């Protein structure tokens, strides 16, 4: 189906929208439903769609697997790292209050950061899994 013109055009225009939506979900999680996890899934969906339409190799060229592996680890490290930072700033583990000037500011920043970590890991792991399954089928 990779040579279906309409499909290509539609998806080309669709993918950016999906990504924007993902970013919205990522950063609007504080106020509405959503957050890093959902955002990660949606973001990965964008890439998966791309890979489905333009072929697996094209998909893997967008984000090489080593890159994914590093991103996945990075996400975890960001999350856990925030905790370590709070430790060094004299708080308990993952006590964001010490991150900013005020408690609330600190909390806000902390939540933002960890959600980012979540998003990264989920996004890249979803892709890792997808590519693993899809790649297994190839001759």
């Amino acid at each position, binding site marked *: 189906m990779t040579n279906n013109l309409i499909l290509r055009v539609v998806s080309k225009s669709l993918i950016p929208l999906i990504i924007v939506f993902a970013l919205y979900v990522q950063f609007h999680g504080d*106020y509405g*439903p959503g957050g890093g*996890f959902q955002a990660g899934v949606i973001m990965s969906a964008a890439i998966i769609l791309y890979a489905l339409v333009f072929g697996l190799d094209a998909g893997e060229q967008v984000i090489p697997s080593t890159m994914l592996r590093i991103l996945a680890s990075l996400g975890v490290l960001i999350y856990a790292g925030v905790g370590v930072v709070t430790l060094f700033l004299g708080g308990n583990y993952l006590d964001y209050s010490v991150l900013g000037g005020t408690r609330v500011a600190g909390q806000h920043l902390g939540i933002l950061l960890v959600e980012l970590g979540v998003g990264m890991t989920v996004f890249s792991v979803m892709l890792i899994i997808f590519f*693993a*399954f899809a790649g*297994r089928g190839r001759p």
Partner: protein
Amino acid sequence: MDFIIGHYNYWIAIFLMMTGFYTVISRGNLVKKIIGLNIFQVSVFLLYISMSTVKGGAAPIITEGVKLYSNPLPHVLILTAIVVGVATTALGLALVVRIKEAYGTIEEDEIHQQDHSL
């Protein structure tokens, strides 16, 4: 009557759980087992969320003038549980793929035959 109104939610959730549970322990097809597992878990989520709902309560997003909210804690727990669930599913399916490659089948009893006919 009130009792039933107040509980049918749980009971149907339990019914769903048991269909999933049954699929897991009675079926021999490895993929279907995993689907059963998913149904089992999703229904457990239903049970949790049923416990969190408050009649006339709003979604737990603080907004002006809303007094009553449903209980956010089970929501959080279930969010985590959902993620755990999908992780398990992915791992399980990956195993199924490998088993298919190694045995050429994903039917439990055929696999047993192969291992014991040796």
